């Protein structure tokens, strides 16, 4: 039990990362190359932290506000970016992260600048984080199996086909941005209420790269992709603790291996292999039936 308790912070971090990875996953699934997750998470974290410490509001209100503000921010970003694709979307959303970072660093009256906001009442624990991951994951699985998920998949694979089937790409990109913004905002709120303090640099370039890596490693079609990716990339650095300075090198190597040999990510590759096997097995059964 003691052994387990000492790992609680690690589990909490893994769950937080899963939520961020969900936010990144939903845009990538829809074929949007958004890097805005870190910015939406910062918005959510600061919203919750400010409401709790300066206005003394309950965590429930804080987290709801984080989620709603994240969704609004997602919608506001989606509209001007509707005409951008691929690397231009990435650059524009990267700028969003920079803007958020300079606001949290320089608007000292509200955000306490580089020192960050301290003394946030800890009101979310491991169980709360776990419930949040289950609820968001279930939600995304339901959406993924619906008409929205089908439209996301066609847009991601071939936008020309999507429009020729009558799918309105701006509409589904808007939905993806709103989902991504609200999930990341919610995750940021949970993080604020589970970690006593938040600082601007937590929500910077490092988070952006890490979250993107989780989805690339795990996969971007199945909802399990971000879960697996986040679990691996949270636990791996801990396992490599003994290697100290080589830690980043090994983490980078794992990622490069995944990109080269598993370009669809672990979960989606595994799913494809499993399905191909099942099809082959049913074929074999049929030919056997014919020859007998």
């Amino acid at each position, binding site marked *: 039990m003691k052994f387990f308790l000492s790992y609680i912070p690690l589990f909490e971090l893994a769950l937080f990362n899963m939520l961020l990875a969900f936010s990144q996953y939903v845009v990538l699934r829809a074929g949007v190359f958004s890097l805005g997750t870190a910015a939406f998470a910062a918005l959510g974290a600061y919203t919750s932290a400010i409401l709790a410490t300066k206005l003394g509001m309950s965590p429930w209100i804080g987290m709801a506000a984080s989620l709603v503000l994240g969704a609004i921010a997602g919608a506001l970003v989606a509209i001007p970016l509707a005409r951008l694709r691929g690397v231009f979307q990435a650059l524009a959303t990267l700028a969003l992260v920079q803007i958020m970072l300079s606001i949290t660093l320089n608007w000292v009256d509200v955000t306490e600048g580089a020192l960050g906001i301290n003394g946030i009442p800890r009101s979310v624990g491991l169980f709360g984080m776990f419930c949040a991951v289950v609820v968001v994951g279930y*939600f995304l699985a*339901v*959406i993924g*199996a*619906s*008409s*929205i998920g*089908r*439209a996301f*998949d*066609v847009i991601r*694979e*071939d936008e*020309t*086909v*999507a*429009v*020729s*089937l*009558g*799918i*309105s*790409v701006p509409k589904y990109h808007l*939905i993806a941005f709103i989902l991504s913004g609200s999930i990341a905002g919610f995750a940021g709120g949970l993080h604020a209420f589970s970690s006593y303090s938040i600082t601007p640099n937590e929500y910077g370039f490092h988070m952006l790269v890490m979250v993107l890596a989780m989805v690339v490693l795990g996969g971007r*079609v199945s909802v399990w992709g971000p879960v697996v990716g986040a679990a691996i990339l949270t636990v791996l650095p801990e396992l490599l603790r003994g290697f100290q300075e080589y830690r980043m090198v090994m983490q980078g190597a794992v990622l490069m291996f995944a990109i080269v040999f598993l370009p*669809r990510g672990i979960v*989606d590759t595994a799913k*494809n292999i499993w*399905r*191909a096997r*099942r*099809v082959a097995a*049913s074929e074999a059964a*049929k030919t056997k039936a014919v020859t007998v």
Partner: protein
Amino acid sequence: MKALCLSDVSRSFGGLPAVDGLTLTAPAGRVTGLIGPNGAGKTTVVNLITGLLKVGRGRITVGERDVTEASASALARAGVARTFQNIRLIADATVLENVVAGFHRHETTGVLSNLFGLPSSFAERRRLEEKAGALLERFGMTAFAAHPAGSLSYGHQRRIEMMRALAMDPSVLLLDEPVAGMNDSEAHSLAEIFRDVAGQGVAILLIEHNMRFVMSLCTHIYVLASGRLISDGDPEEVGRDPKVIEAYLGS
């Protein structure tokens, strides 16, 4: 019953005319042919009709509706379906999933019930899979429903594209070289399906290289060369036209 009409449609790329003053009518319930040598501008015509390319000059109408300025997705929702010359499927998705995607314009569940997984969202999925299953049966592809589309042969992939287009229940159907790379018996079975679809009141515009296939299927044929209409008429007239023979042999 809606006809597709192009009147004096032109489009050029960097000053070079790709389609020049094309006037054409594809009436409902018929298969109309559009043929021409390589580089004649046939695929450009399809892209202009479907709104993937903007029309430079002229007018395109579907039934009474002027669709010259309509966006590609609005046109598809209005019932203009197409297949692609180079097959475009979701290779990793199953055959059934690819066909279900074609039903998008008939989906009726709202965004909110999809977001919250209300029963109507699941019911719709089942309903569409059943309808897709019926299409698969018609094309003799039921056994392949669970196969990834990318793993199948060329001829089968062509059929999947066709089923996806028919899933849209279109009023205008544009077929860009649908039997390219198929053998005669495969082409023959598709011809039956096209006749059948046209018989239900769909206006079909068939763009094709295979002259024999076009001649056997179309009631009216337009011949394009270097973006211009050089001949049109029933299959026999066009087949005899010296300009058509010259355009085909000269290229």
